[in-house]
């Protein structure tokens, strides 16, 4: 994984929200690099900062949030320091995004075709007619039957799964280098989830695109990802190739997550869960954010934040690994 040059390199990313009670740091120094053609899954529970991280990559954060520190290097340029108009050339064309709720992510008063067409026209100098032909082709490609007719319909005439297909067509319209998918299946029916996931995965590997896949669903990760990054309290807990992580999780949090996956084969009376609640952003402790819930916690864990110990590409932030490293 380390061999090929990274397409996207995130270095020490800090994001803060300004609230009435003061500044709250949601991402506290996230670093990773995304190699070409690979899929990185960012896994975390609600409030871990995974969506904030996704939005910060293209600087789409709400006005109250700010990238306070760090760099996002893409194609030799630091996205955190580009001007809005320079960034606009990257958005949608080189790095594109799929969002969580496809029904609200499309404009209700514009036709699906129009929204697809304008994406193409924003980046390519071609005639409207050719953009339309391209848009219809894209709709077919993402599995929308009767694409020419559907082109002129509005989002409310589509089901959730169909809307997400449109979003995917939109994201892939300009053959981007990186696709960011922020919980693309969370708002969909379970039966549709697998279809959509398969579609994204197929299109991604066909095009040789890199992707950042954000999810809270660890089971889903095994199918799509090459590498997994576990996010907790705005910090990276563990990062490893997907098989290594599932076979040999090093961090107690990851172990807890994997433990709470329910197997169909075993009949269990109790659903195993991690005790306690995730940290509320803003109530900082100087040590490891997982310390209050950790079954193998040490005294040191509360005082000092563990660094990412790296052993052959398997990184984990836990003091238990200190001796081994």
């Amino acid at each position, binding site marked *: 994984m380390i061999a090929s040059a990274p397409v996207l390199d995130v270095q020490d990313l800090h994001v803060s929200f300004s609230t009435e009670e003061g500044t709250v740091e949601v991402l506290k120094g996230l670093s990773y690099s995304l190699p070409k053609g690979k899929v990185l899954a960012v896994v975390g529970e609600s409030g871990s900062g995974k969506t904030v991280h996704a939005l910060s990559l293209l600087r*789409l954060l709400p006005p109250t949030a700010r990238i306070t520190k760090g760099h996002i290097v893409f194609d030799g340029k630091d996205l955190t320091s580009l001007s809005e108009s320079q960034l606009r050339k990257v*958005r949608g064309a080189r790095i594109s*995004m799929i969002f969580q709720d496809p029904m609200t992510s*499309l404009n*209700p*008063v514009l036709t699906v075709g129009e929204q697809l067409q304008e994406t193409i026209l924003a980046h390519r100098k071609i005639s409207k007619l050719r953009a339309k032909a391209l848009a219809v082709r894209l709709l077919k490609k993402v599995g929308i039957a009767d694409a020419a007719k559907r082109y002129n319909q509005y989002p409310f005439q589509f089901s959730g799964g169909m809307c997400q297909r449109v*979003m995917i067509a*939109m994201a892939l319209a300009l053959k981007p280098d990186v696709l960011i998918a922020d919980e693309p299946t969370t708002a969909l029916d379970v039966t549709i989830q697998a279809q959509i996931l398969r579609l994204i995965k197929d299109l991604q590997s066909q095009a040789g695109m890199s992707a950042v896949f954000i999810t809270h669903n660890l089971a889903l990760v095994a199918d799509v990802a090459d590498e997994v990054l576990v996010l907790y309290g705005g910090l990276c807990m563990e990062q490893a190739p997907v098989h290594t992580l599932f076979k040999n999780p090093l961090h107690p949090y990851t172990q807890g997550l994997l433990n709470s996956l329910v197997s169909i084969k075993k009949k269990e009376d109790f659903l195993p869960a991690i005790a306690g609640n995730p940290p509320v952003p803003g109530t900082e402790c100087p040590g490891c954010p997982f310390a209050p819930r950790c079954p193998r916690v040490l005294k040191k864990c509360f005082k000092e934040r563990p660094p990412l110990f790296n052993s052959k590409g398997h990184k984990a932030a836990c003091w238990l690994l200190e001796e081994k490293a």
Partner: protein
Amino acid sequence: MFNYVLRRLLLLPVVILGVTFLLFFLTQRLSPEMRASLYIKDPRQMGSLEEVIQKYGLRDNMFKQYGRWLGNALKGDLGYSQSANMPVAQAIKAYLPATIQLAVVTIVLVVFFGVWFGCVSAVKKDKWQDVLARVFSVGGFSLPIFVLGLLLLMLFYGKLGWFAPGGYSVYTDAVVHGGSFHSYTGFLLIDSLLNLNFRVFWDVLSHLVLPAVTLCIGSFALMVRVMRSSMLEELGKDYVRTARAKGLSPWQVTYKHAGKNAVIPVITLASIQFIRLLGGTVIVETIFEYPGIGRFGVIAAQQLDIAGIMGFSLMVAVLFVLGNLLSDILYTAVDPRIRLD
């Protein structure tokens, strides 16, 4: 859609019956003698009061009288307006176009400036543009219309002499009522252009500007408010984020995406304001001596011209239903969710 319009139109007779019956009921509170006295011009004729009561059946059962009025109205006869000295139907025909003209010009100004200021206000939230737009609109809203009208009159007529108050110039009256002026639409602003008479056009326009501006300043504050809050709400929605993520320009994101959604509530407000302008520009028409239907209505009311009052309210009721229908049709033009439902 067609069904919807039809259903709305079927509602029209119900509304008209309700409004006119209510008003008729109120006028019946006046004694037959009082109502009869309206027909008498000279005190020396007071002796024939009983004769008038008999002739017009003013002592009949209320429902019988109402039925008689309704029957005549259906035939197009709304009675004779004592205050305007002509049949009511003719008075409406003479005065209504001027008011519609004023209302249309005003609502165009209100929507244009309201939407513009509201958008700027939302996009530049809490910046100086927002503060300016809010101060200006609330200022206009707080100033009573008669004060504002008089101030404008003092400034632009009194001091600067740019615009004329009062009725149209003698020249205009002479041309319009002369033989060669062809009345195509009844709207002088359009007719004068069609007749290629630019002097009349300019005269009519200069009488329109001050009342229209007065009405506009008075009612666009609400428009700015509605547009601003609606725009702010839309700008926070997911599809705006998608539009930005696609790499669209700020102009496209704000106006094409958010603006098209934000303008929907403005349509309701604009049609309510338009209907209000049609039926009730009384104060402004009075201040500027504008020859419109509002002035006709107020004079009819002052002089207890019952036929005039009934005719006026009948007209307002009809306009009200039609105005609402118009706003519903406009809705479908903007919002596909309603159009295709």
